[in-house]
């Protein structure tokens, strides 16, 4: 069964069905969209259960564009790394739809369509195995997000959405030139595997190509100092938009580094590693400090993303299995935790129509369940051990320390700062006396809200105590990527991967 | 210097002078008259360049028809001429002169370098008599000749449409209703 094609085109199909449902029948539209999204999520679980070993699975390879100018094939597949990003996308889409069930009141049908189209675009990015296909999806997913922010966003939405779109586009277009150059020099093909095999470009050229790719990805991540679009976009986006933006769209950047920059330009990647690690660490600390003083909860979470993604970048440029495993893990974790945080802020916003921290206070005494869920999400985001956030950060730090102890120690202070800004926010929002009478009318989480928060909560705990659910499946892909990103001629000091030596059943007692 | 050359020099000078008059005389009727002078001078130059038939056509078509058309319209419109002189366009005239001078100097240099070297004597004289031109026109240049038919047809239809009086129902917006809404 062409699972990936179903996942890529399924949302489009659902969107097409939506287009034919009468405009006034909002309930049916929502039901169809959610039903479709849930079904797609369940289908994506088949990827999870069916995945084993390393390498690309569920590969589909069909002729697509075959012209005298160039050839591009519809080639998709997932390895351990993209597998979880795809599943994260299919998971967050229905959750986002549920979260915006009642908060989106205008142009519901268009909204649902754009959400589904976004899902298509993002899954396409993660599944593409052909450079042309990848790039097409990469830019294409800007469109639905652009509308989601621009139509259903806050007061300053148009500035934010244009900034988001143009900022990302500028970076992408330079990557486009690099892709074209690569095509020209590496065998006139867009097949990614072949490109990686052929990409023996001299280091001077590699540097430029790497920078072009890296710019696109770094903007998407976003890496300091290319981050300023993110707070604006998040602040203005509707809740579901923020969830998708933080949950999966940012991962496209880090995924790009891992999937393209490193294997294609191993020397240049390594040559720039100190720079990128430094920027990542600056981002970690800078994002955290700036987050601490935000008066707006969403902006705070947005800046926290800068900080968290800084960890991922730090791990990626450490070039070892430990850090990469952590980085992949952290990508998923950030989607879960930050997604949950945005959802929870959305719960408050839907009732009070403000996200300013000072408008709240003492909420915990009114909404005990919300309190628990919010605290869990905050702690997950702050990297509390036994929750998911820790595993990623810990692995990243373990790996990064081997590459650069000093920077890693500096990055570790981000752990302190995360507690500072998150708990301080939590304290001001949830604790104390109720200072605004309006807040007394706040409702606790409904069953509906719990229904979409529960999976995230479960994952926070489950991935915290049993991260091997992910790590054992990403290991093969990480090792393979590491192998293909190896600088030829250098003997890597990587652990020798002996498949039979790895036991995920738990080692024996000593 | 041959008579031809003398003739050329005189009428070339005349053409230039009348050309300058065309663009300098304030009254368009005077300009039109100067244009006649210019066209006639050029016709003479054609003659000196072995193109008698062209000279005739020049005199008949240009001086005879086109300029007359010009005169008709000038008189028909009895225009107030160039009334509003825009201050912010004052730079244009000197710029145009300088620009044209530069162009001419460039052309001068090019012609001097290229053309100056090839003043090769020529013994075979080819004269543009009507017969030869006719043969070319309906032989080698049949296609462009046909092309002119499209051109003329289009010009005919277009000029007729434009010149026709307006019909009722056509929306007019003269009268300042429409303001420039860009800016």
């Amino acid at each position, binding site marked *: 069964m062409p699972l990936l094609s179903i996942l890529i085109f399924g949302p489009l199909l659902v969107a097409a069905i939506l287009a034919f449902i009468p405009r006034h029948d909002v309930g049916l539209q929502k039901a169809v969209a959610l039903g479709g999204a849930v079904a797609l999520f369940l289908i994506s679980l088949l990827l999870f259960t069916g995945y084993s070993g390393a390498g690309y699975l569920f590969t589909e390879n069909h002729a697509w564009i075959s012209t005298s100018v160039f050839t591009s094939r519809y080639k998709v597949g997932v390895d351990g790394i993209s597998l979880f990003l795809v599943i994260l996308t299919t998971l967050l889409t229905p959750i986002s739809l549920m979260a915006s069930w009642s908060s989106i009141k205008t142009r519901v049908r268009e909204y649902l369509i754009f959400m589904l189209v976004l899902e298509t675009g993002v899954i396409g990015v993660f599944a593409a195995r052909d450079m042309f296909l990848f790039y097409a999806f990469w830019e294409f997913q800007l469109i639905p997000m652009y509308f989601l922010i621009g139509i259903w966003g806050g007061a300053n939405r148009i500035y934010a959405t244009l900034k988001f779109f143009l900022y990302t586009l500028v970076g992408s277009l330079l990557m486009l030139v690099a892709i074209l150059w690569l095509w020209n020099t590496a065998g006139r093909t867009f097949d990614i595997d072949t490109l990686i095999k052929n990409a023996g470009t001299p280091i001077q050229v590699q540097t430029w190509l790497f920078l072009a790719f890296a710019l696109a990805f770094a903007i998407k991540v976003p890496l300091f100092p290319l981050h300023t679009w993110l707070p604006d976009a998040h602040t203005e986006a509707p809740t579901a938009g923020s969830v998708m933006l933080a949950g999966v769209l940012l991962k496209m950047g880090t995924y790009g580094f891992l999937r393209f920059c490193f294997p294609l330009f191993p020397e240049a990647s390594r040559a720039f590693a100190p720079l990128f690690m430094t920027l990542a660490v600056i981002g970690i600390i800078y994002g955290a400090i700036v987050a601490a003083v935000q008066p707006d909860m969403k902006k705070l979470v947005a800046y926290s993303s800068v900080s968290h993604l800084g960890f991922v970048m730090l791990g990626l440029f450490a070039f070892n299995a430990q850090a990469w495993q952590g980085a992949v893990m952290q990508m998923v974790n950030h989607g879960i935790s930050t997604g949950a945080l945005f959802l929870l802020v959305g719960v408050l916003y839907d009732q009070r129509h403000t996200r300013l921290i000072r408008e709240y206070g003492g909420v915990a005494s009114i909404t005990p369940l919300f309190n628990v869920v919010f605290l869990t999400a905050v702690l997950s985001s702050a990297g509390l051990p036994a929750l998911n956030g820790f595993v990623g950060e810990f692995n990243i730090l373990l790996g990064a320390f081997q590459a650069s102890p000093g920077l890693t120690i500096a990055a570790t202070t981000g752990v302190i700062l995360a507690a500072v800004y998150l708990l301080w926010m939590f304290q001001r929002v949830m604790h104390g006396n109720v200072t605004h009478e309006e807040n007394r009318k706040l409702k606790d989480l409904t069953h509906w809200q719990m229904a979409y928060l529960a999976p995230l909560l479960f994952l926070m705990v489950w991935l915290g105590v049993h991260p091997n659910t992910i790590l054992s499946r990403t290991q093969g892909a990480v090792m393979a990527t590491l192998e293909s990103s190896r600088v030829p001629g250098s003997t890597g000091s990587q652990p020798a991967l002996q498949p039979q030596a790895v036991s995920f059943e738990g080692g024996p007692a000593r | 210097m*041959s008579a*031809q*050359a003398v003739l*050329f020099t005189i009428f070339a000078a005349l053409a*230039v002078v009348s*050309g*300058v008059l*065309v*663009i300098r005389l304030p009254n*368009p009727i005077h*300009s039109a008259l100067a*244009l006649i002078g210019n*066209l006639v001078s*050029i016709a003479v*130059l054609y003659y000196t*360049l072995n*193109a008698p038939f062209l000279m005739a*056509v*020049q005199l008949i*078509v*240009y001086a005879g028809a*086109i300029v007359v*058309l*010009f005169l008709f319209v000038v008189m028909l*419109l009895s*225009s*107030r*001429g*160039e*009334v*509003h002189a825009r201050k912010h366009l004052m730079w*244009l005239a000197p710029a*145009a*002169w300088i620009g*044209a*001078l530069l*162009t*001419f100097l460039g*052309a001068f240099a090019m012609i001097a370098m290229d*053309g*100056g070297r090839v*003043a090769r*004597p*020529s*013994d075979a004289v*080819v004269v*543009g008599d009507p017969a030869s*031109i006719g043969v*070319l026109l309906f032989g*080698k*240049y049949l296609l462009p000749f046909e092309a*002119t038919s499209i051109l*003329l047809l*289009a*010009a005919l239809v277009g*000029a007729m449409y434009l*010149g026709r*009086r*307006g019909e009722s129902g056509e929306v007019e917006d*003269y009268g300042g209703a429409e303001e420039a809404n860009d800016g």
Partner: protein
Amino acid sequence: MGDMVVPLSRCLLVSALLFSIGVVGVITRRNTLVIYMSVELMLNAVNLSLVAFSRHLHQLDGQVMALFVMTVAAAEVSVGLGLIVAIFRNREHTVDVDSMNVMKW
């Protein structure tokens, strides 16, 4: 004929000079009709070149081309005059080209 013939370069020079004059006329004059006349100057200048080249190359092709150019000039002028008449009729009665600047920037 030897040096009895007018040199090609001299013809070209006159042509260039006339062309330049036409250019100046188009740019400096505000009266649409005079601008048309200046365009005629330019076209005639090119015709002069064509004829000169034609003589130089011992061909008549250049002269035929000049003939075509005259047709073009006639067509352009007829449409142009039609247009100016139409505008003059409908508009505040002027042929000043500078007054046509509703659209800009």
